[in-house]
């Protein structure tokens, strides 16, 4: 298994440009997440999905959009890039059974480093 893969690894955008960060997992996980990590900081949840066709906002969703048309893929869309979106973006996935109370293990991708100039 490749686990969680992310593309691209690096990207530089100009203010106002758009792009899609790709994320895929081959572990048949139902839960997927997008986080951003600013320098010297922890991770903040942008959006998450509990299954195909279902998405919900996290802590910092403004300026981003997501879709989940398949179990495997969870792309993150930036419509009008701003310097404040310069960050490292991590995608993660986990498998959670209905009614399971304990936090499950989240498996992270290697990240996409985005710079907006």
């Amino acid at each position, binding site marked *: 298994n490749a686990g969680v893969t992310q593309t691209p690894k690096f990207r530089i955008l100009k203010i106002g440009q758009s792009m899609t960060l790709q994320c895929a997992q081959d572990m048949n996980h139902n839960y997927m997440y997008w986080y951003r990590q600013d320098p010297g900081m922890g991770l903040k949840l942008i959006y*998450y999905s509990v299954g195909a066709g279902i998405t919900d906002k996290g802590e910092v969703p403004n300026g981003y959009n997501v879709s989940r048309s398949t179990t495997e893929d969870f792309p993150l869309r930036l419509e009008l890039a701003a310097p404040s979106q310069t960050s490292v973006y991590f995608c993660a996935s986990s498998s959670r059974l209905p009614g399971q109370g304990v*936090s499950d293990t989240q498996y*992270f991708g290697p990240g996409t480093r985005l710079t907006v100039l």
Partner: protein
Amino acid sequence: TQLLEQSPQFLSIQEGENLTVYCNSSSVFSSLQWYRQEPGEGPVLLVTVVTGGEVKKLKRLTFQFGDARKDSSLHITAAQPGDTGLYLCAASPRTGTASKLTFGTGTRLQVTL
């Protein structure tokens, strides 16, 4: 949103020394996780603690969950250069729903020879 404070922010020690990293909040956690992140990579789960007062050991790493489930500590015995990395605690505020983890700000550890 729960606020998780980690201390210290940075720690530089020599090989063989012991260290403790703390994760604190004013809120009660349903469970807490510790992750380690190496440069250029995503975080990797080290442990999950669920019960107040719980202690878990992973080789030279000892994790403790506070009795009131508001704080946790990570103790490393005889640190090695391979322990270098960013240590993150993450808390789950609810059970039975998506794992909307709140991450702490991290403790960056450097272990030198």
